[in-house]
């Protein structure tokens, strides 16, 4: 998650949710996000809420973190219950970071077990952790599988050493096929995360990274354009002219190449930046974000959403641990969305999905734009004819522009 929290209303110290959170909850899936705010090294492009081991102490330290996270899990179950939100089993769980696998696998397993103790878990639930290729072993993977993890997402980013260097990634490319094989052997589905558009990355470099990743036959690939956030080391280097700036045309070329090669390899897009080998292997936790399902975010700076109430935790791990140790909610702020805002979000989020957006969600003015979008080659005509707005390849690259056009009022 980004380092800057949005502005919203203050959240109450007991964490209780407004009444609307409970409305229709039984019909929505419920997921859990667990943020692990630690990394071995801070990458130059990263503005996420993460810390290196030596930066923190007390309840925020790496050793104590699992216990602190579990205390929020317990609090979360109480808050939902006291807010009148009906109990639901976990549908998806996602450990992200930071580098979750910097914690001992036993710690991740403990947090997962504590969560299942609170809510239970659906049969066939998806449980993912992100991982750095450097920080897993066959043994740690076995522990995760044993605890109930079903899926692992490796931060491969690139197969090209000079690109990894600009990104400050520490792993050697040859380690990736090794850890993919271990994960397979442990019985985990495998996703690979790639980043394109890194300064100095040629189109040939990117093609090589894609071909290399695809040669490992992952079940799922995420390919994200590099975003240079203010305040990162990379932004400073760019400002000083030490590395070249971002070129949107280069990003567009690389996205098109990614879609071409990944699709050729037999995977299909289901969200602008995500491809899966089969629809079942799409990341359901990720889809929950785009579909407006409910999830609770555990950890400093984590975001949550329940029934149109969005909130976010205090950012610093020490402040986070401190709140919880006093029995207070770690929520820093929240917003309660009205129906117009929820509709706007729905359009904004669902337009990114291959399953598309129901055209009937749009206002009359918005619907009026659809013909023009088809004419401009941004929207699939056949799907639109059946009442769904689905982006073409060109439309995916211009998704934000499309959303602005279909939200004219």
């Amino acid at each position: 998650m980004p380092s800057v929290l949005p502005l919203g209303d203050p959240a109450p110290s007991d964490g209780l949710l407004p009444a609307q959170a409970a409305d229709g909850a039984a019909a929505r899936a419920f997921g859990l996000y667990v943020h692990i705010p630690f990394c071995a090294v801070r990458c130059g492009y990263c503005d996420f809420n993460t810390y290196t081991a030596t930066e923190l102490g007390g309840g925020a330290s790496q050793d104590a973190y699992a216990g602190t996270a579990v205390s929020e899990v317990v609090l979360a179950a109480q808050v939902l219950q006291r807010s009148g939100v009906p109990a639901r089993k976990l549908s998806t769980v996602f450990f992200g970071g930071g580098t979750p696998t910097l914690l001992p696998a036993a710690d991740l397993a403990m947090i997962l077990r504590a969560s299942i103790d609170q809510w239970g878990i659906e049969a066939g639930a998806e449980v993912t952790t992100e991982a750095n290729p450097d920080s897993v072993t066959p043994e740690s993977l076995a522990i995760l599988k044993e605890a109930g993890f079903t899926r692992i997402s490796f931060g491969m980013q690139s197969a090209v050493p000079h690109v990894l260097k600009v990104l400050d990634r520490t792993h050697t490319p040859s380690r990736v096929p090794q850890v993919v094989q271990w994960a397979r052997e442990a019985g985990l589905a495998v996703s690979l995360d790639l980043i394109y558009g890194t300064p100095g990355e040629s189109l040939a470099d990117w093609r090589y990274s894609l071909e290399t990743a695809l040669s490992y036959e992952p079940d799922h690939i995420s390919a994200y354009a590099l975003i240079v956030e203010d305040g990162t080391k990379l932004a400073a280097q760019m400002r000083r002219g030490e590395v070249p700036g971002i070129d949107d045309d280069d990003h567009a070329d690389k996205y098109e190449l990614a879609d071409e090669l990944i699709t050729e390899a037999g995977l299909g897009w289901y969200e602008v930046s995500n491809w899966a080998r089969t629809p079942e292997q799409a990341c359901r936790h990720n889809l929950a974000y785009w579909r407006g399902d409910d999830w609770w975010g555990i950890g400093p700076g984590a975001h949550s959403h329940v029934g149109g109430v969005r909130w976010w935790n205090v950012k610093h791990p020490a402040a986070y641990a401190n709140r919880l140790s006093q029995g207070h909610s770690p929520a820093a702020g929240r917003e309660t969305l009205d129906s117009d805002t929820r509709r706007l979000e729905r359009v904004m989020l669902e337009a990114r999905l291959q399953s598309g957006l129901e055209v009937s969600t749009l206002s009359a003015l918005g619907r009026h734009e659809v013909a023009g979008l088809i004419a401009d080659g941004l929207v699939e005509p056949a799907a639109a004819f059946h009442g769904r707005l689905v982006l073409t390849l060109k439309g995916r690259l211009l998704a934000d522009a499309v959303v602005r056009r279909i939200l004219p009022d």
Partner: protein
Amino acid sequence: MSPMARTAPVPAATDPAIIRNFCIIAHIDHGKSTLADRMLQSTGVVQARDMKAQYLDRMDIERERGITIKSQAVRMPWEVDGVSYALNMIDTPGHVDFTYEVSRSLAACEGAILLVDAAQGIEAQTLANLYLAMENNLTIIPVLNKIDLPAAQPEKYAAELANLIGGDPEDVLRVSGKTGAGVEALLDKIVRDLPAPKGDPDAPARAMIFDSVYDTYRGVVTYVRVVDGMLHPRERIQMMSTRASHELLEIGVSSPEPTPSKGLGVGEVGYLITGVKDVRQSKVGDTVTNLAKPAATSLPGYADAKPMVFSGLYPLDGADYPVLRDALEKLMLNDAALVYEPETSAALGFGFRVGFLGLLHLEITRERLEREYNLALISTAPNVEYEVTLEDKKVVQVTNPSEYPTGKVAEVREPMVSATILAPNEFVGAIMELCQARRGVLGGMDYLSEDRVEIRYRLPLAEIVFDFFDILKSKTRGYGSLDWKADGEQAADLVKVDIMLQGEQVDAFSAITHKDKAYAYGVMMTGKLRELIPRQQFEVPIQAAIGSRIIARESIRAIRKDVLAKCYGGDISRKRKLLEKQKEGKKRMKMVGTVEVPQEAFIAALTTDESKDKAKKK
């Protein structure tokens, strides 16, 4: 040293022999206000201990209420050799744009203090006003101010002044408005050296208007200098240019508060209030006479203010058009030189074409509209007035490139100016280079002192209205100063350059330029727009054309990527806020055909970097 006057001469009963009317000619920061304040204090019009506590504070309140803060003319008593004199200090605007107003202020005086900063020497506009004063046969008292400054070079600049007006450097007074040194000697010198006003007390009344100011509470306050006869309260007066008559509700003098009097006689300076609401009914330069006993001829020198520079003013937000219209109406009450008419631009919507005396007048007006009426404005590139003669002999006056006729043009005439530039002699080469590039013809050059020169050029007005002064300043490291006055017109090889976005002409970017500069303008403007207009979902050609002939082209490639790759671990709020911000941004776009052009592009394309700096300085 003279003591403060024990008794002040009474208005309406003052012998012209004891009246002295003078103004101060000075450059903007050469210390005129400080010296004026010091004179008010020395003459006892304002008490020393009240100077700040009362006088200046009162001005702040006035400023808050939006009423007049300037004292256009102040009457001060001063005693020399046991005789009490009435000194009238008449304010003069300090800028070239207001030369006509300056000339009327000078015409109300018998003498002028030429005030020059002892650390900087004379500036071009001061020199121009000095020449104007000399043409009006005013007696000049040269004064160096700020002699307390460490950087002062009184010997050098005294020699320069003596050289200019003829005389001995020893005769140049040295004062410090800040410390008060030399101020009493200056007051004595005013009494001794300046001639008393002359006039016929028995003739029909004639008074010249030298300033006219709108006051929210009192209506128009008119400042006059009586030449012949006498004006009395409650009588009916007549404006000789319009024949309009008004009742004189109040007449008096400022010292410095307005003080009603029983009238104003020969040589006296004061104010009139008639209850009119618009300064156009009481114009600078006009002659006031008595309706019952009118004068046969008006005083010489009256002229209507003629706008020289035209610019379109458009509200950034189209909904503010009525606010702009009301604001212009209000400004007009206090600015007889301001003229405007409604105008529509395909690109900018509804606005006004406004005529100004010069660029400063434009900037002041725009700044007042923005600050006092809280408007965000786009002003189009300033234009001069061209006279276009078609082959069928039809003549068209063009103040806006969009009015340029499409038929066969036989001749285009453009207004000319004669410009005077003062600068240290090391910059002569750079100045000549600049003036030649601006189609100037050298008129002459003189040395003011051994290292300062006066250079005279005849230039097309169009060449100096945009960025000339800023470039002059930068080429002379800030030392160059400029003055100009209208100097007829000339036929020139001028063409209209159109700018087209996707084949659609954008009137706001059109320009009338010399044929030799059309290509450079086309390349500059198309290049600038390519940088300023964001990429669209389709390719946008930008062309510059003279008639149907394309002289420059650029193209904005279609945007291919406009999507945020990820959602930041569930931070949907951030993504939504970004979308809302983008939607807001879209609202501020002007549609030119199907091309979205941000307002900033209009502003940036019509502004040079130098003129932005200038706006800051002012």
